[in-house]
């Protein structure tokens, strides 16, 4: 007989792994594209906008299927070096999740950059501070502070997004819950336990973000 809890805990470990890894890559991607988005060159700008438009405008499930089954259907790719990565469901999930959260993160950061009052930058300029230092010492810290609440939300949304990983055979929290369901025919027990574990993880993330907001964010 299968016991629900230990199975789900091992699944939760995979869920956290997926979340942390894809948030890490997503942050790098998001940061990179946010910089491109505030670039004055309209081609660069449009390219970055196209990326975020596509990944925010299509369901994560579609993106996941596209990367997992879609790419695997291209023979050229299957015979190339990339197959080592695409073959693994785990890396397909990481790619899809990172690109997805990267798109949202780039928008969060962009809007944070754009809401910085012009006066700050002008003040720096008038004091003879270089553009580079203005960016690193004034624009960036303000943008990060500004983004904290929205970014916290994005982490929680992504946590829930990772539950899709189970459709490409990854045994994350949702995957384990589905396994328990088909073995015991008790969907309520399986999914309510998974739900509570998700809720618990959300609770922890929420509190971590709140701590950072309190410490580094704008006091309101």
């Amino acid at each position, binding site marked *: 007989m299968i016991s629900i809890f230990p199975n789900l805990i091992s699944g939760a470990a995979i869920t956290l792994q997926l979340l942390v890894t894809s948030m890490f890559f997503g942050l790098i991607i998001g940061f990179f594209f946010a910089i491109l988005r505030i670039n004055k060159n309209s081609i660069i700008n449009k390219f970055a906008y196209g990326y975020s438009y596509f990944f925010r405008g299509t369901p994560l499930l579609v993106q996941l299927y596209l990367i997992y*089954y879609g790419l*695997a*259907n291209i023979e050229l790719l*299957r015979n190339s070096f990339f*197959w080592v990565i695409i*073959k693994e*469901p785990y890396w397909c999930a990481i790619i899809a999740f990172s690109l997805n959260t990267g798109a949202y993160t780039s928008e969060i950061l962009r809007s944070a950059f754009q809401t910085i009052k012009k006066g700050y930058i002008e003040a720096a300029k008038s004091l003879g501070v270089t553009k580079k230092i203005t960016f690193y010492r004034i624009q960036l810290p303000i943008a990060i502070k500004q983004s904290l609440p929205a970014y916290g939300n994005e982490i929680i949304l992504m946590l829930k997004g990772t539950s899709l990983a189970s*459709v490409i*055979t990854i045994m994350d929290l949702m995957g384990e819950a*589905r*396994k328990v*369901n*088909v*073995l015991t*025919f*008790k*969907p309520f027990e399986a999914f309510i336990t998974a739900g509570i574990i998700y809720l618990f993880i959300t609770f922890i993330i929420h509190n971590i973000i709140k701590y950072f907001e309190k410490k580094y964010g704008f006091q309101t």
Partner: protein
Amino acid sequence: MSKITKFGLGLLISLLLTLGANAGSIKIGTEGAYPPWNSKDASGKLIGFEVELANALCEIMKHNCTIVEQDWDGMIPALTSKKFDAIMAGMSITAERMKTINFSQGYADEVASLAVMKGSIIANMNTPAGINLSIGGSDVDKALKTISSSLSGKTVCTQIGTIHQNFLESGDVGKINLKTYKTQDEVNLDLTNGRCDVALAAASSFDDYAKKSGEAVVLTGPTFSGGAFGNGVGVGIRKGDSKLLNDFNAAIDKARDEGIISKLAIKWFGFDSSM
């Protein structure tokens, strides 16, 4: 009477009438994604061996039947929560499932088989054509040993919640990397693109896929029956629903005697797998 009361009363009466009209009808759940047992045609209509058999059985029972679609992994919970009254979805009769639901007598045999892509190093296994795990014996032991050593360390794919998964997790096949999928379609996809070294499902479903897709999927090793693979495919019915169970058993008897099951089996599987 105010207008609202009249309207409410009218609604109530029409509701009662529809309920009354449905009294003699039953709903049968199927997956619609496991050809040739049950699947959908291009227009989305349910087709397959079990869809036609269900209609034939309903005609015999003089029930008014509707066939509804349900994902495989929610099939048994959907039956117990009364979303429909019977399952006809290539579901094998196993002791594990009998703890939760009842089964009619079997109506067809579903032998399982491993499948690989043509040219795979395990495309030729030295085993008998078929083994029955319930009977056992030295032949079966030897075959399982051959299979275990062939599958060792391989990625083996199968649909979740099936007899095939049970078998692969039973320890009979040694150490494998098991991957489970929501549908057989996805197993087939990952078998052809090379993510799976080998897959396990009903032999008929691989044959069907190879024929329709043109992919070089070939069966390997013996066909499996008995043991974890259960005792044929039957109609799943809620525990306590003994009237419906008896009706189905009687209807299956009659359909078998009249040759209806054989005829449908030959039409859909190409050979007589009725039982």
